[in-house]
C-alpha cells in the first residue's frame, strides 16, 4: 500500500532497533525516542529562560562584554550555573533537533501531507545552528574573534559586502557586538514563527515530553554543567589573531571542518564549506518534493450517510477534515446541518477517520469497508469447511 518499503530500508530498521532497546528501559509512553520533537521544544524554552538571566548582566561593547560575562560567572550567585545551563541546554537542544530530524526522515514521516512540517523544520534546524554559533560571538574572548574572522572568510572575505555587513563596517566596533546580540536574541523570535508553521497541520501536537522525562533530561544537563564548568578563553584583541581555540563540537563542526580543509584547498576552503552547507540545506528543502508520491487513496465522504457528528474531524491528526454546511441537494441526516469535507492534499490516507465513523460515511477508495467485511467472511467461511486431509507421503 505504501511506496516506502520498510523491510529493506536501513534507516527504518535502525530506528526500530533503537526503539526496541529503549522500550526495554522505559515504559512505552515514556520512551524518549518518541518525544524527540517535544524534547527539542523543551530545551528551546529552557535555553530562552536561562538566556534571559544572562541578558540582564550582558553589556554589548568591546570593553565591557568580556568583563560582564566574567562578572556574571564569578560574582553573581549561581551565575556559573546559569551560564553552564545555557550552553549545555543549547547543546542538548541541537542533539535532540538532529535526532528528531533523522527520525522523521528515516521513518518516512516527512513527505506528502507532512511536507510543510519538513520545510519549516529545515528552517528551524538552520536557525538553531545560527543561533548557537552567534552565542559564542558574544562572550568576546579569543574564540569569538576567531569565529568572526572565519565566518567572514566563509561569506567571501573581510572586505567584501557580506563580510562588512556581518560586523557592521570595515573594523570590529561596539556596533558589531550590538548586532550579534540582536541576532542572537532575534533568531528565537523568528523560530517562534516557524514553530507555529511546524505545528499548524497537526491536530493535538505533542510539544513537551512527560514530566518525569523532563526531570531526567534536566538532571543530565545539570550534571554536565557541574562536571564541566564553562570557561572563557583570554579576552579578544582585534589587533592580534589567535591561532587556536576550544571547540564546542556541537555547533562548531563546520568551522573545524573548514580549518581542516584549509591544508588541502588553502584559503578557498572557507567559502567552499559555506557553499556546501548551503547546498545541503537546499537539498533538504527539496527532499519531500523529490520523493513526493501521489495521493491515490484519499478518503471520500459519502454525503448521504454523513450526519455531521464530527468524530472524523476530531480524530484526524492532519487537520484534513473540516465540517461545512450541508450543500443544497443533499438531504441532511441528523440535526446539525453540517457534513464532513476532505482537504485532499492534507490527507494521510491512513483511514483513522474511517475507524472513527459509526455510520460508514467515509471510505478509503482502494481499501473499502466492504472489502474488509468480505475478507472476514471469506476467512470464517473457509474455517467452517471440513479440513482437507493431508496427503500421505
Amino acid at each position, binding site marked *: 500500500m505504501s511506496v516506502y518499503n520498510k523491510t529493506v530500508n536501513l534507516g527504518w530498521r535502525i530506528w526500530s532497533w533503537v526503539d526496541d532497546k529503549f522500550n526495554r528501559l522505559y515504559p512505552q509512553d515514556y520512551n524518549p525516542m518518541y518525544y524527540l520533537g517535544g524534547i527539542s521544544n523543551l530545551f528551546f524554552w529552557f535555553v530562552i529562560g536561562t538566556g534571559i538571566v544572562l541578558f540582564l548582566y550582558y553589556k554589548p561593547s568591546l570593553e565591557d562584554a568580556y568583563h560582564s560575562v566574567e562578572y556574571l560567572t564569578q560574582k553573581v550567585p549561581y551565575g556559573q550555573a546559569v551560564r553552564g545551563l545555557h550552553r549545555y541546554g543549547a547543546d542538548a537542544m541541537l542533539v535532540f533537533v538532529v535526532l528528531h530530524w533523522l527520525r522523521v526522515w528515516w521513518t518516512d514521516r516527512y513527505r506528502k501531507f507532512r511536507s510543510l512540517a519538513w520545510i519549516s523544520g529545515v528552517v528551524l534546524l538552520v536557525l538553531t545552528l545560527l543561533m548557537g554559533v552567534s552565542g559564542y560571538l558574544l562572550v568576546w574572548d579569543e574564540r569569538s574573534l576567531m569565529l568572526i574572522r572565519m565566518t567572514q572568510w566563509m561569506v567571501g572575505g573581510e572586505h567584501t559586502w557580506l563580510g562588512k555587513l556581518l560586523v557592521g563596517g570595515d573594523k570590529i566596533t561596539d556596533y558589531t557586538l550590538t548586532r550579534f546580540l540582536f541576532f542572537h536574541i532575534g533568531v528565537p523570535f523568528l523560530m517562534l514563527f516557524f514553530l507555529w508553521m511546524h505545528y499548524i497541520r497537526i491536530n493535538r501536537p505533542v510539544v513537551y515530553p512527560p514530566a518525569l522525562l523532563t526531570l531526567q533530561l534536566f538532571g543530565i544537563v545539570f550534571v554536565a554543567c557541574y562536571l564541566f564548568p564553562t570557561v572563557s578563553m583570554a579576552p579578544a584583541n582585534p589587533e592580534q589573531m589567535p591561532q587556536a581555540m576550544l571547540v564546542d563540537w556541537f555547533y562548531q563542526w563546520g568551522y573545524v571542518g573548514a580549518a581542516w580543509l584549509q591544508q588541502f584547498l588553502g584559503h578557498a576552503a572557507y567559502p567552499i564549506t559555506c557553499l556546501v552547507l548551503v547546498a545541503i540545506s537546499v537539498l533538504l528543502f527539496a527532499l519531500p518534493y523529490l520523493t513526493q508520491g501521489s495521493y491515490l487513496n484519499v478518503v471520500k465522504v459519502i454525503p448521504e450517510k454523513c450526519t455531521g457528528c464530527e468524530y472524523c474531524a476530531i480524530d484526524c491528526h492532519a487537520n484534513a477534515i473540516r465540517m461545512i454546511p450541508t450543500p443544497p441537494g443533499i438531504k441532511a441526516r441528523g440535526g446539525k446541518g453540517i457534513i464532513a469535507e476532505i482537504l485532499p492534499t492534507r490527507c494521510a490516507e491512513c483511514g483513522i477517520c474511517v*475507524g472513527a465513523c459509526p455510520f460508514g460515511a467515509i471510505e478509503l477508495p482502494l481499501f473499502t469497508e466492504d472489502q474488509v467485511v468480505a475478507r472476514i467472511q471469506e*476467512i470464517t467461511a473457509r474455517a467452517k469447511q471440513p479440513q482437507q486431509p493431508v496427503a500421505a507421503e
Partner: protein
Amino acid sequence: MSDHQQSETPNSRGPLIIGFLCEWAAQLDEYMNEDGTLAALPNVHIIKIPCSGYCKPAWIEQAIQQGAEGVWVCGCPMVDCHYREGNIFIRDRLLGIRNPYLRLKGGRGGARGVDPHRVRGYFKAGVSSEEFIRELKEFSEELAGHPIELGPIKPVREHPGPVLDPTPYNPTGPEPRLTSS
C-alpha cells in the same frame, strides 16, 4: 451466536483467530504464508490495514459472530503511531471508552456483547516480530484451553496504560477484568 458451540467444532489447526495488523507495526511479512496466515500459527489469519486506527470495532464484533474465536489488533507502540494517535484510539475503543466503542459483554455491550477474553490489543515496534508471534501463540493456547464464556466484565474507566492485556482466565481467582501492564 454461541461461542461455546463453535469452539467445540473439530479444528485440527486450533482456534480460528483473525488479526488486524497495522502495516507500520511489527513486520510479519517474512513469517506469513501466501494466504495471509502465519507460518508458525496457521489458525491466525491476518488482515493488513494502513493504521490500527482504521480498524472498526464493528468488524471485531462481526468476526466473532461469524465464528472467529479470537480477534486481535496490532498497532505501533503507544505515542509512536505513524499517524500520531491511531493506536490510542483503537485501544480506547477496545476498552469501551471512545466512540464508536467495542460492545463488551457485561460492559456497555450488555449480555450480547463480545467476550473480552477473545479480543486483544498488541502494540509492537517493527523489529519485535518474533516476540509478537510468541505472544500470539500464548493467546492461541489460552483460547484453546479455555473456550468458555466468562462472567460480567467491568470496563476500565481510568487511564488504562499502554498494553491491553486481559488477565488469564482463572476460575477460582478474583473477578476477571481488563488490566494494564
